[in-house]
């Protein structure tokens, strides 16, 4: 993974000092809350329902053991002993005090961590495939580009006061695990007809009030040109994005208003000028230099046939079940990718205690693993595990409550913090996730249902990515009472689609039955190897709608 040099370290140290001064000025009354708010947001500090919340950046979701230990320390020293992993691969602490934040940031800086630009109207954490460097279908490790973009976007003088937030994601595989088409800017690493590796750039994707799928603005951008291209897109957005209406300020609105062709034209005009100046060219040596940081570990020469692993699978039903869902094939023979579920049945999705986080650091050290990953689905990933180590690792995870065998299944639910924590929320999302999880706890039933991504957001800001859920749930407020809208058929993968709303919202005591109802329709109607998503796409939402509203007094 990337390691700071003196320059990176100094940038973070300067930012800590700067933020400390900003806090001092705020407390001394030299800054009003209105002036301070964008400044604290640019350092990931929100004021939520119960307390301040600090969102710490985890660049492309990669964490080393010393960083995990520091996060556990932060949880203990400054917070209430736990953290929450987010849908953008970051971690949040919910009970931070403003006066402690500069010290917490100083502590984080000692392990090359920060909270720079995790909120605010600036370029946010660049996310990437959580299986980077390990997946069999990977063309190139997306974190190389993500790191280059991270540096270029950090404290960018021209783009720190954008119309709205700006989120970038990178995928390096055919199968898109980074949801690039739902980002303000998404990059797919591709090979062109001449065999050269370059980038397909999308712009204008997004969730929220008006979800959009991104349009291609750069069919094939050469590696050395990518920063010039990204800067061109940012400049067009900064100049022309709407400033009059907060709900119409994202780039997706601009792309839609201009139309993709005009957007491309403006981007190309800007891009040609920047490219001609040479200022942002990424030389091959620089690409190679950064790539070195992400070189895979020295894999042992192993057979992919691992008899001990197979024996353990045969001997233990629990281990067997876990390998069915939580173990993914690795590009190196004898290795595997292991998903650590943070979705225990009935638990709070994405939360981890300081004990668990510390224990994971120990686990990495014990098995000689240099890093783990945070996925945008609020789980953790061990990217490079020797198959023969899996039984022992499973046992350790199990003892920590981190071995729920449900990756990708119905109980692997994504939920935003919702009205239990968030100042913006209209309804609670976590209790709904918990109830669905408990309703479908039976593992055989989960396997029968198969792959099913349920995503729950507590408000229109869609931090739970409900538009991209096979089943999406949106909490709404009707006269101070919580209601839940159901939508089906969304996907954040390379086959990106936005879910269709079924109809009127359900009460909090009705929504779980409605979800069970639509799953029932899937089980009745599916053909062959269809997943839930496939059946919805094939038969349309009518049969699901009928079932969800069966028993409603009026005709839908």
């Amino acid at each position, binding site marked *: 993974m990337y390691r700071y040099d003196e320059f990176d370290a100094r940038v973070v140290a300067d930012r800590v000092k700067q933020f400390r001064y900003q806090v001092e000025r705020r407390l001394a009354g030299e800054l009003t809350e209105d002036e301070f708010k964008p400044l604290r947001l640019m350092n990931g500090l929100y004021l939520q329902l119960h307390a301040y919340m600090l969102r710490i950046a985890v660049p492309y979701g990669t964490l080393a053991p010393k960083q995990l230990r520091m996060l556990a320390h932060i949880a203990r020293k400054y917070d209430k002993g736990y953290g929450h992993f987010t849908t953008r691969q970051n971690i949040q602490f919910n009970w931070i005090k403003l006066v402690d934040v500069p010290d917490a940031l100083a502590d984080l800086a000692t392990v090359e961590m920060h909270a720079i630009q995790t909120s605010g109207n600036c370029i946010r954490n660049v996310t990437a495939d959580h299986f980077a460097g390990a997946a069999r279908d990977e063309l190139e490790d997306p974190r190389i580009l993500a790191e280059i973009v991270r540096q270029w976007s950090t404290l960018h003088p021209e783009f720190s*006061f954008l119309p709205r937030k700006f989120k970038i994601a990178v995928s390096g595989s055919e199968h898109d695990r980074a949801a690039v088409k739902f980002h303000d800017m998404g990059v797919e690493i591709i090979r062109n007809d001449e065999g050269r590796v370059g980038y397909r750039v999308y712009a204008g994707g997004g969730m929220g009030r008006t979800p959009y799928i991104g349009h291609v603005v750069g069919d094939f951008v050469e590696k050395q040109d990518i920063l010039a291209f990204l800067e061109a897109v940012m400049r067009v957005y900064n100049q022309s994005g709407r400033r009059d209406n907060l709900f119409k300020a994202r780039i997706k609105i601009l792309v839609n208003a201009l139309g993709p062709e005009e957007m491309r034209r403006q981007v190309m005009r800007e891009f040609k000028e920047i490219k001609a100046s040479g200022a*942002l060219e990424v030389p091959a040596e620089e690409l190679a230099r950064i790539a070195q940081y992400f070189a895979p570990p020295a894999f042992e020469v192993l057979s992919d046939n691992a008899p001990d692993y197979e024996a353990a699978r045969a001997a233990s039903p629990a281990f067997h079940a876990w390998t069915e869902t939580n173990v993914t094939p690795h590009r190196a023979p004898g290795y595997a990718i292991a998903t650590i579920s943070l979705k225990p049945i009935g638990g709070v999705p994405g939360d981890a205690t300081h004990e668990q986080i510390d224990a994971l650091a120990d686990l990495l050290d014990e098995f000689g693993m240099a890093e783990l990953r945070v996925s945008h689905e609020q789980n953790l990933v061990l990217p490079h595990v020797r198959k023969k180590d899996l039984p022992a690792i499973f046992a350790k995870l199990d003892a920590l409550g981190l071995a729920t065998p449900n990756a990708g299944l119905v109980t692997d639910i994504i939920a935003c913090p919702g009205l239990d924590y968030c100042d913006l929320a209209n309804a609670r999302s976590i209790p709904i996730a918990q109830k669905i999880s408990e309703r479908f706890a039976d593992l055989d039933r989960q396997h029968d249902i198969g792959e099913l991504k349920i995503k729950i957001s507590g408000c229109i800001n869609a931090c739970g990515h409900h538009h991209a859920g096979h089943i999406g749930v949106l909490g709404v407020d009707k006269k101070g009472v919580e209601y839940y809208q159901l939508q089906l058929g969304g996907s954040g993968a390379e086959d990106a689609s936005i879910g269709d709303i079924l109809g009127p919202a359900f009460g909090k005591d009705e929504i779980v039955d409605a979800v069970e109802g639509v799953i029932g329709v899937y089980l009745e109607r599916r053909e062959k190897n269809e997943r839930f998503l496939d059946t919805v796409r094939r038969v349309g939402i009518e049969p699901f709608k009928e079932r969800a509203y069966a028993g409603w007094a009026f005709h839908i």
Partner: protein
Amino acid sequence: MGVSHMTGEKQAPNASEGISLRLIRDGAFVEDQYVTLGDDDPQPANGTIVSLARFEKERDALVARNAPLGVRLKSDESPERLGEDLERLSVIVLEFPKFRDGRAFSWARMLRTRLGFKGEIRATGHFLYDQLAHMRRVGFDAFEVRENFTLDEFARAMGEMTYVYQPSADGRRTIRELRALART
């Protein structure tokens, strides 16, 4: 404190409402060489700054005068609207109606880079101490600030970030360039 006329309490940005401002240019306090004219004010003999609307209306008369001329742009007015007349202008004033409106960062950058403007780029309106360094980087060299803002604060703002990652209009060496130098 908020730097322009923000003292922690909201005040109107318009200079003609009698708020005391000072001009920092190239890191020092200077006298304003120009008079900023309202759209209906008569023209004095010396340097003037007019709104884009007035410039577009009275262009010929204005450029015919043998006196320094500047145009003040609102945040939604692109410098490209000045076309070739930019060459005749010695100062462009870019407004920040609210510090959150960051369009002027791109206008300044455009003036320096695409349009090759070498005159003064002056910031006016609502902007914060915390934006000054970024503003300097994208090409602002003059700042209309509240009377009690000190040069020490200005210098502090300029020095807060030791290194920068990305190139901008100021030509400042980037971290990548420094790394390359360190390796030689």
